[in-house]
C-alpha cells in the first residue's frame, strides 16, 4: 500500500524540501471586505485562508487545515479542489464587475471541479486510467456530499465533463508541470500519475443553512469569533446574491510547498431589507410620515404622495445588517500587526463611527476610498455609518469598475419539441477579448451543432465538443471566441428535447429541468499573468415534454383508442371486399419462393438418395399448397 494514500505527486516533492530552510508554518488569516453598492446594497466578502505544510499534511498532522476535508482529499488523490455554492445573481449593470474577478464564484446551485490523479503507475491503457479517475471522482463527490450536506452525489457521469480550456490550475501543480516537461522530451524519472480535471454542476441544488453549518465547521474559529461570527443563515440566505467557495490548492515557493485552503463567502445584501427587525420582517406599507413625498408635484396633497427617490446613502451598521456585531478577532489567527481584518470601501467624506469596547487600530490612507480596521481581541466590534444625503454639488461615489463582458443567456422557442439557446456576449471595452465559453448540457437537451451560429463579428477560434450519449453523458461544448471591441456577439443554436422514460421524471416534472449556467472565462491578455476573469450566466429552466400524470388526457387517449379500435374493425368489415380463396391470384413473389423451395427440396431429395425421393417431394408439395389455400379471409368458405 502506498504511504497514506496521499497524492503521489506531493509525496514526490518531499525530498525536494531542503531541511535547512525553516518549514512553512501553519497559518490562518481572515478578512472581511465591505463595499456599499448602488441601489441600496452592500457587498460583504469574507475570506478565510489557512495553510499547512505538505509534510504535516502527509503526516496527518493538522492544525488549521480541516482534517475531515484533508482525509477525503488524500483518499481520492485530489490535487486541487474547487467547490462552489451559489444562489441568486450578480447584477453587473448596477454593481459593476464581480468580486475577486469571478474566480470564487459558481453557477447557481453547486459547482465542483477538481484535479484528480489518474490511477496510473506509469503507462496504462487510456480507458483504464480514465476509469480509475472516474472512480476517484465518484468517491470525491460522494464524500463531499456527506461533508457539506449537499446532493453532490448526483454528480454522475451524465453531469461530469472534462473541460479543456475553461479552467487552469490555480496552485502550483508540480505533477502537472512534471508531466508537461516529460512531454517536451526531458528525461523522466518515475512517471507520476497524470492529473485529470473533472467538473460537475448541480443547478437545481438549493443552497441553504445546512450547507453553511458544515462550511463554518471547517473554520478554526467555527463562527464563534472573528468575522465569521457575522455569518448567520438568516441573513446570508436573504441576500440578493451569495456564493460560498472552498478551494484547496498546493502552493510552492522556492521548493517549499504548502497546502492552502481558501474559504470565501461573498454576498450582496439589501441594506433596507436586512435591517428590518426580525420580530416584524413583513414589509408593511410604511406609515405616511416615513415616506418622503415630492411636494413639487402639482397634485401633491394630504392624500396624494408621489414618492421621492432617496439618493443619499442609508444609515447602517454591521450589527443592524447582520444581526450581531463582530465578536472580536479570532484568537487563532496568525495575522501580524500589519494585517487588517476588515476593509471598508466608502467615499472619503462619509462619516464612520467605530463602535468597539477596545481601541481599534485603523488606517485610512489619505484620499483613499479604503479604510482598514483591526479587530480587538475578545471585544465586540461594530461599524456605524449614519445616513448621509448626497451632496448634489460634488457627488462623491465609489467608482464602479466595468465588468469585462456582459453575458446573458436565454432559451427561446416554445412547445415540447424544439427550442433554442441564445447567448448574448457584449464587450463594452475598446479592445477585443478572447473568451472561453463553456456549456455543460444534460443529455436530454440535444443540441443541433449544425445550427450553432456565432453572429455579430465575433470569431470562433476553436471548439471542443463532446457529443452526448443518452443517459450516460451530457454535451460538453467549449468555444474559444474572440469578441471584438465594443460589440455584441450572439451565439445561437437549436436543440431538441428528448422524451424521458416515465420513471425518469422527478416528482415535480412540470417545473422543468434546470440547465446549468454557462461559464465564460475571459482569457488574460498577452503578457498578463493569472487566470483571467470568470463570469457565469444564470441557469435556465427547460420544459420537457411531460406526460400528463393526471386525468383529462387519459380520458381523451382512452376514448380515442376505443373509438379507433371500434371504428377500425367496423370500417374494415364494411369496406373490405371478400373473395374466395381460389380467386386470389398467387403473388409472383410467393410463386417464386414456392418454386425455389420445391427445387431445393428436389435437390435435397436427390442427394439423400432415391428411396426417400418420392415421399419428400410429396410432402413439399403439400406444404406449398397449404398456404395458398389459406389466402384471403378464412371466414368465407363458400364453394361453388
Amino acid at each position: 500500500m502506498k504511504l497514506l494514500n496521499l497524492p503521489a505527486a506531493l509525496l514526490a516533492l518531499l525530498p525536494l524540501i531542503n531541511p535547512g530552510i525553516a518549514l512553512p508554518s501553519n497559518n490562518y488569516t481572515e478578512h472581511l471586505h465591505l463595499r456599499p453598492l448602488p441601489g441600496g446594497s452592500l457587498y460583504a466578502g469574507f475570506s478565510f485562508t489557512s495553510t499547512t505544510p505538505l509534510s504535516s499534511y502527509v503526516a496527518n498532522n493538522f492544525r488549521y487545515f480541516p482534517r475531515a476535508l484533508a482525509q477525503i482529499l488524500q483518499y481520492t488523490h485530489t490535487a486541487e479542489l474547487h467547490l462552489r455554492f451559489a444562489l441568486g445573481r450578480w447584477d453587473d449593470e448596477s454593481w459593476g464587475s464581480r468580486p475577486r474577478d469571478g474566480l470564487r464564484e459558481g453557477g447557481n446551485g453547486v459547482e465542483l471541479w477538481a484535479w484528480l490523479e489518474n490511477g496510473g503507475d506509469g503507462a496504462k491503457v487510456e480507458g483504464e486510467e480514465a476509469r480509475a479517475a472516474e472512480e476517484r471522482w465518484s468517491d470525491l463527490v460522494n464524500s463531499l456530499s456527506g461533508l457539506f450536506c449537499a446532493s453532490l452525489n448526483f454528480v454522475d457521469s451524465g453531469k461530469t465533463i472534462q473541460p479543456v480550456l475553461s479552467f487552469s490550475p490555480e496552485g502550483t501543480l508540480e505533477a502537472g508541470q512534471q508531466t508537461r516537461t516529460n512531454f517536451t522530451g526531458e528525461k523522466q524519472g518515475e512517471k507520476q500519475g497524470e492529473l485529470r480535471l473533472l467538473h460537475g454542476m448541480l443547478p437545481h441544488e438549493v443552497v441553504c443553512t445546512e450547507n453553511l453549518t458544515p462550511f463554518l465547521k471547517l473554520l478554526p474559529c467555527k463562527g464563534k469569533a472573528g468575522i465569521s461570527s457575522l455569518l448567520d443563515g438568516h441573513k446570508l440566505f436573504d441576500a440578493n446574491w451569495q456564493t460560498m467557495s472552498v478551494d484547496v490548492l498546493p502552493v510552492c515557493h522556492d521548493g517549499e510547498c504548502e497546502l492552502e485552503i481558501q474559504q470565501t463567502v461573498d454576498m450582496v445584501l439589501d441594506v433596507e431589507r436586512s435591517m428590518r427587525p426580525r420580530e416584524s420582517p413583513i414589509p408593511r406599507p410604511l406609515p405616511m410620515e416615513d415616506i418622503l413625498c415630492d411636494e413639487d408635484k402639482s397634485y401633491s396633497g394630504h392624500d396624494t404622495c408621489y414618492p421621492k427617490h432617496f439618493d443619499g446613502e442609508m444609515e447602517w451598521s454591521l450589527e443592524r445588517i447582520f444581526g450581531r456585531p463582530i465578536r472580536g478577532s479570532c484568537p487563532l489567527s496568525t495575522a501580524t500587526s500589519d494585517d487588517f481584518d476588515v476593509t471598508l470601501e466608502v467615499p472619503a467624506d462619509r462619516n464612520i463611527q467605530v463602535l468597539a469596547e477596545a481601541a481599534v487600530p485603523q488606517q485610512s490612507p489619505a484620499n483613499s476610498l479604503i479604510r482598514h480596521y483591526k479587530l480587538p481581541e475578545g471585544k465586540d466590534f461594530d461599524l456605524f455609518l449614519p445616513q448621509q444625503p448626497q451632496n448634489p454639488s460634488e457627488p462623491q461615489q465609489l467608482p464602479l469598475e466595468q465588468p469585462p463582458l456582459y453575458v446573458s443567456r436565454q432559451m427561446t422557442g416554445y412547445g415540447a419539441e424544439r427550442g433554442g439557446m441564445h447567448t448574448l456576449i457584449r464587450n463594452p471595452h475598446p479592445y477585443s477579448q478572447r473568451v472561453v465559453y463553456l456549456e455543460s448540457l444534460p443529455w436530454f437537451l440535444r443540441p443541433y451543432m449544425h445550427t450553432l451560429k456565432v453572429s455579430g463579428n465575433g470569431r470562433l477560434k476553436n471548439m471542443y465538443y463532446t457529443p452526448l450519449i443518452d443517459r450516460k453523458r451530457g454535451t460538453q461544448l467549449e468555444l474559444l471566441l474572440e469578441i471584438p471591441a465594443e460589440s455584441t456577439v450572439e451565439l445561437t443554436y437549436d436543440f431538441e428535447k428528448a422524451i424521458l422514460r416515465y420513471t425518469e421524471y422527478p416528482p415535480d416534472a412540470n417545473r422543468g429541468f434546470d440547465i446549468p449556467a454557462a461559464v465564460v472565462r475571459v482569457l488574460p491578455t498577452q503578457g498578463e499573468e493569472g487566470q483571467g476573469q470568470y463570469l457565469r450566466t444564470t441557469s435556465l429552466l427547460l420544459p420537457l415534454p411531460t406526460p400528463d400524470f393526471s386525468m383529462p388526457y387519459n380520458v381523451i387517449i382512452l376514448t380515442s383508442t376505443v373509438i379507433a379500435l371500434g371504428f377500425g374493425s367496423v370500417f374494415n368489415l364494411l369496406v373490405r371486399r371478400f373473395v374466395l380463396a381460389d380467386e386470389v391470384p398467387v403473388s409472383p413473389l410467393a410463386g417464386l419462393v414456392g418454386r425455389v423451395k420445391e427445387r431445393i427440396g428436389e435437390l435435397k431429395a436427390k442427394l439423400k438418395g432415391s428411396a426417400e425421393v418420392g415421399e419428400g417431394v410429396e410432402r413439399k408439395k403439400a406444404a406449398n399448397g397449404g398456404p395458398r389455400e389459406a389466402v384471403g379471409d378464412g371466414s368465407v368458405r363458400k364453394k361453388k
Partner: protein
Amino acid sequence: MALSTRLLALRRSPVLLKLPPYLSALCIVVGVVWLLLLPLNEYSRSTYISENAILPGQVHTYFGGSEHNIFRAYRQEVWHLSERSDHDRIFGLEHEMRSIGLKAATQEYSWTVAGEEIKGMNVYGLLQGPRADATEAMVLMAAWRNFDGQINYSGVALALSLVRYFKRWSIWSKDIILLITDDSTYGPEAWVSAYHSTSSIATSSRNISALPIKAGALQGAVALDYPAGPWGQRFEKLDVLYDGINGALPNLDLLNTAVSVANSQMGIGCVLHNTVHHFDTYSDRLLTLTKGLLTQSAGHATGPHSAFMPYHVDAVTLRTVGDGWHDEMSLGRATESLVRSLNNLLEHLHQSFFFYILLNTNRFVSIGNYLPAAMIIAGSFTISALALWVQSGKASKGDEQLGKDGKKATEKKMELVSDGDDLALVPKSDLVAAERKIFLPATILLSVHLAGLVPLYLLNNLNRSYLTSAFHFIALATLLLPFYLSLQLSRLPTQQIKILQSFSLLFLGATLSMLATINFSLAFIIGLLCAPLSFLRPLPRLFTTGSLKQERTVDDAQAFVASLVVVLPSAALYFLISPPVVLYVVASGLPGLIDPENWMGLGRLGLDGLLVEMARGWVAQGVWTGLVVWGVWWPAWVVGGAVLGSAVVGIHDNGT
C-alpha cells in the same frame, strides 16, 4: 368468427343500408341536446382548486395605507402622461419604472395588415426576485388602452404602485415583469412572441424588435383593466376574461384562484363574459356557455391576456365592471393575493383542466362531459360518408335497369350459392361488386380544397379598400361555383359523385373531430353549420327535356312542380349555410343579439371591420379560424352543392 359473419350478413341487410341518414340526423340532434344538457347540475361540476401549492387567499395582503396615497399620485402621473405625446409617454413610463428600481426597456412593433399599419411601443420593467434564480418569471400587465380603446389610467397606475410595493418583499421566487403594452391585442402579442424568439427578422407584414431584457420561463400573467380616470371610480364586480387565441384557455386553476381570491378574500363578485347579472339559473348558465362558445370559436383575442395562451403561459385579465363600492385598493389587494398565489407555484400550472366550459364563475363542464357533443356531430358526417361509400360499391339497380337497352333485366335475379352441402339463393345484385373509380373524385376534392386557399389568401392580403369588394366578389363566385361544378359533375356517373361526396364528408368528419379536441367551440359551430351537408343527395331533375326532346305532358308539369317543391327549399337552405352568407349575417350584427353590448363589438364593426379584424387575426395574432372556414367548411360546402345540383342541371343521363 361468428360475430364477423353476422356483421357481414348485416352489411347486406336492407334495413342497415337505409339507416345512415337517420343515424346522422340522430347524431346531430343528440349533439345539440347534449350541449343543452350541460348547464344542468347533473352534467356540470363546481370548480375547485386542484393545485395544492397555490393556496389562494391564504396570505395576508398588506397593500393599503400609505400605498393608497402613492397610488393616487401615480394615477395623476399617468393622467399627466396621457396628455403628452406617445413618445414622451413611453419614456415617462420607462422613467417611472426605473425610479421604482426596475430594469426597464421598450419594444417597438408593427404589423402591416390589409394595407394598414398596426404599430406601437411596449414598455416593460423587470423586478428581479431578490432571491430568485432567474429561471422563472410572472407578468403583471396593464395595457395603456384597454380592449375598448379607453385609456387604462387606474390599471396602469395600480400596476406601477403594486410593483413598487412588491419591490420591498423578498419572498419572490420568480421575477416579476411589469408590462405596459400600447394596446390590448397586438402589444402583448408582439411582446410575448419576442420573448420566445431569438431575434427579430422583419418581414413585409411583421416587424417586431427583440427584447433587450429577458427573464426566465413565464409561469403566468395577470392583466389589469381599470380605465377609471384620475379621480377614480368605484366598481361593482370583476369581469374575469380568460379566452385565448384560437379558443385556448388558461389552466382552470388560475381562473379559480382569481375568482376565489376576489370572491372569498376581498368580497368582490366575479362575472364571466360580462354577464353582470347572473342568477345561476339554467338560462343564465346557457347564456354564459353560448358566449364562451362564440368567442372561443371566433378565436380572436379578447384582452391582453389572450396572446399568452399559445405560448403555454396561463393568463387572465381582471376587468372592472359596473358601479359599486369596491375601490382600487380592493383590486390591488386581490391582485397582490393572486400574484402571491402564482409565486407559490412550484411547477408550471398543470394540475387542473385546460379544456373546460364555464357556466358561471364557480361551475364548469369538463372535457369528458362536453367533448362528445362536437364529436357526435362530427361523427354524423363520417356515418354518411361510410353509407355513401358502401352505396357507391354496389352496382346500382338504376344502372342496370336503364343502362342495358332500356329493357328490364331478363337475366335471373337470384343466384344459387352452395357452401358444402348448403345451398342458398342470393339476389344477384348483392353479389356484383362495382369497381370504384376514385381517382377523379379525389382529384376534384383536392382541387376544391386548394381553391379554398384563394379566398384565404385574398382576404388576408388585400388592401383594406379592396377588401369589401373582394369579399362580395368571393361571395358571388362562391355561390356560383356549385352551379358550375354540378354542370361538370353531371357528366360523371352517380357512383363517382357518391364517392366524391363520401370523401368530402369523411374529410369533414375527421377534421372536425380532430379540431374538437383543440377548439371545441369552433368544431361544434362549424359542425352545426355543415350538418345539412350529410343529407344532400342529387336533387330530382327539373327539366326532363334536355337532349331527349320529348313533349311535355301534364304529368311532366306535375313532376316539375313536385320537384320544384323539393328543389327550392333545399337550395335555399343550402345557400343560407354557405360561408359568405353566414359571414354577412355575422357582420350585420345578428350575433350581437345575444349580448347587444359586448359581443366583441361585432355589431359595430360592419362587414369591412369584420374582414379587417379577420385579416388581422390571421396575420398578426395567428388565428386559424380563417383556415377552418376557407379550408374545411368552404370546400365541404362547395362539394355538397355540386352533388346537390349534379342532377338538377343535368344534360345527360345519370349514369353512362
